[in-house]
Every structure is written in C-alpha cells, then in structure tokens.
C-alpha cells in the first residue's frame, strides 16, 4: 500500500541530463526535442499519455526561446515565416481531427521509417 501511495519525485541528475539533450536538439536543429523528452519522461515513471502532454509543456518555452534567437539573428524573414506558420496552424487542426480515425502503432512505424529515410537522405 505504501508503494502505491508514495509520491514519486522528479528531478535529479537524470532529468538534468535529459534537459541538456532536449535543449541541445531544440537549439541546434530547431526540432526533435520532443522525441527525447517523451522517452525520458516515460523512463522517469510518467505514464505514456501524460508524458506526451508534459513534453509539449517542456518544449513550448524552448521553441519560444530558440525561435526568438533565430529571428533576432535573421535566420528567417516575416514574408517566409507568416505563410508557413499559417499552413502549420491550419494543418495542425486538421491533423488533430484526423487522429481520431487512425490506428496508432502502424502510423508510428510508418513515421519512424520516414524519419530514417529523410535522415539518410540528408546526411549522405
């Protein structure tokens, strides 16, 4: 019973190391931090669904920080940024509506295969 009621404490070296990896990916590549944050949270004992949601809360401020740095350094002009972001927001709404109708494990296998293909194409 004690095990069930005991509150888990997050933090320590593991979380700090995960934070460094998440921050490095997000800062250097402008994405991919979530792919590290979700498994790190799961390993720390956060249930899968909560881990996905909590990862968004971790990545959002990072995206704002690095986005501001990239913008200040002139990596992107507003004439490029605005139409792309408009597409992302409309697409995001469409995607979340579509999600209810698809099977998740096949979808994620397809997604990882695409990731590997894109990664190989970019690095070779």
């Amino acid at each position, binding site marked *: 019973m004690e095990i069930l009621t005991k509150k888990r404490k997050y933090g320590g070296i593991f979380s700090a190391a995960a*934070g460094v990896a*998440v*921050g490095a990916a997000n800062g250097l590549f402008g994405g991919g931090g979530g792919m590290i944050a979700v498994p790190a949270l799961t390993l720390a004992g956060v249930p899968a669904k909560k881990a996905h949601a909590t990862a968004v809360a971790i990545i959002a401020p990072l995206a704002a920080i690095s986005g501001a740095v*990239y913008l200040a350094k002139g990596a992107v002009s507003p*004439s490029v940024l605005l139409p*792309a972001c408009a597409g*992302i927001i409309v697409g995001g709404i469409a995607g979340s509506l579509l999600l209810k109708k698809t099977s998740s494990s096949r979808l994620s296998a397809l997604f990882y295969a695409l990731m590997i293909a894109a990664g190989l194409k970019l*690095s070779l």
Partner: protein
Amino acid sequence: MNTLVLITIGFAGGVLGGMGLGGGTLLIPLMTMFAHIPQKTAAAINLMGFVPMAAAALVVHAKNGLLQKDAIAPIALPAGAVCALFSLLACGSDDRALSRAFGIFLAVLGIFMLLKEALSSLKAKATLVLLAAMRRDLVAAARQKMI
C-alpha cells in the same frame, strides 16, 4: 520563395504535428529537401509555428489533467539554458553541416524508436503465449485433481 509552396509544406507538417507525430522532425526535412529552404530558416519556421499550436494544445491537456506538473521544471530549466546557447551556435554555423548533423540525428533516433516499437510488440506477443501456456497447465492440473 513561393508563398503557396510555403503554405502547403506548413500544412503538411502541421497535419503530422497535430497527429502527434513530432511535426518538426518531418517538417524540417520536408522544407529542406523539397522546397530547398535553408536548414536554419526551416528550423526557425518550425519553432515559431510550434508555439501557438503548443499553447492551444496545453490548454486542452491542462483541462484533461494530463500535465505532470512537477516533472516540467527539472527538465525545462536546464533545457532552456542549453537551448539558448545552442541556438546561438546554430545561427553561426554552416547550413549544410547543420542539415547533415540533423540527418544523422533523425536516422539514429528513427532506428532506435523503430526497434523499441518492435520490441514492445514482441513482448506483448510473448506475454500472450506465456499466459496461454499457463492456462493450459492450470486446466491440466485441475483435470488431474478431479480424476
């Protein structure tokens, strides 16, 4: 740069992101490979596009009680500091080198995730086989007792 192409690519990346498939991990290669947008520009677009989407999603997640609040700061605080530093580093780096490094990162992460997925489905199958075997043993033992 063609506005329509930018909207279309943003839309495609947004759909993936909305489906919870880590939008940025595919949106960035979509932009660099198909629209020949430089890596840093693609990164900036992904980052700025993520903020409003995340804000909207977080409102819903918070309402549904899906946020593990005490797990956020221990990761987000060191991540924020490192992130600012690495963003500055990226802005001073060569686009081609960054894109290559991102490609390696994607491929390694993809292989790791695919293996993890395969392992967990294998584990589930093994558990089922084990349970079926145990059930057979129990039934056999019960029959023997009855005789």
